[in-house]
């Protein structure tokens, strides 16, 4: 014996059973799948290069530093992020003063034989005890070529990230107040993260 149900009622029951089954079994699965996918996408995005250039300025030569700052400004003009790392002799490019107070003897010596501030930087060639550097700067002024300091300030104004290497600072006894304003401190991990997410990395 079977009692016959109206078709509409039967189909409503089927619909309800299907809906129950979906919400009980399929939805949690979908949810898992989605969060899994999101996690993997996030991990992937963290490894993809951003529209960024990372520059290490290792050299304390005026000409090399100029090249670095010109590239940084060009990149900023073309809507790229810029991260510039200053280490060893390159620290000279972001120095505004040298204060020997409280430094150990060898650090004071180091300060004596390296540029007191960026304006004192010398050329990598034809420096001739600083005469070449002075001549080059007056030639640049005559031709309306921006100075290193102007380029540095421009880059900072356009939100370039400048990072000073704390190991080099510790070694040479350079304190943050001897550097121009707007410099962050960091180490190799800061650089590596930035470099790994950059489309371009330069070591100057």
């Amino acid at each position, binding site marked *: 014996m079977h009692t016959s149900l109206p078709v509409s009622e039967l189909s409503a029951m089927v619909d309800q059973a299907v809906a129950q089954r979906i919400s009980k079994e399929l939805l949690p699965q979908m949810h898992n799948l989605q969060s899994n996918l999101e996690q993997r996408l996030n991990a992937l995005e963290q490894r993809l290069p951003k529209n960024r250039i990372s520059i290490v300025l290792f050299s304390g030569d005026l000409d090399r530093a100029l090249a670095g700052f*010109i590239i940084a*400004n*060009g990149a*900023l*003009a*073309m*809507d790229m992020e810029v991260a510039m790392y200053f280490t060893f002799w390159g620290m000279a490019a972001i120095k505004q003063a040298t204060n020997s107070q409280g430094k150990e003897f060898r650090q004071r010596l180091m300060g004596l034989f390296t540029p007191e501030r960026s304006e004192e930087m010398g050329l990598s060639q034809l420096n001739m005890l600083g005469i070449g550097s002075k001549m080059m700067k007056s030639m640049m002024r005559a*031709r*309306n*070529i*921006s100075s290193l300091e102007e*380029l540095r300030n*421009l880059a900072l104004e356009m939100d370039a990230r400048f990072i000073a290497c704390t190991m080099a600072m510790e070694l040479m006894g350079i304190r943050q107040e001897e550097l121009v304003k707007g410099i962050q401190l960091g180490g190799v991990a800061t650089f590596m993260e930035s470099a790994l997410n950059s489309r371009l990395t330069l070591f100057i």
Partner: protein
Amino acid sequence: MQQLDARKLQCPMPILHTKKALTTMESGEKLQILSSDPGSANDMESFCRKSGHVLEEATESQGEFRFIIRKG
């Protein structure tokens, strides 16, 4: 049309001033740039290609370069 006089400026200044001028403008607006830097002919092309702007005109006469850029 907005005007930018970048004559007598050297690399990277013409590009920097162009970028600065463009940021104050609306998409579709045009900017005319005068430059005396021979490198700016190639620079403006690259700048526009990489920054999504359109270089509509690039002319040179007697060492003076004239560009019209439509903001992208």
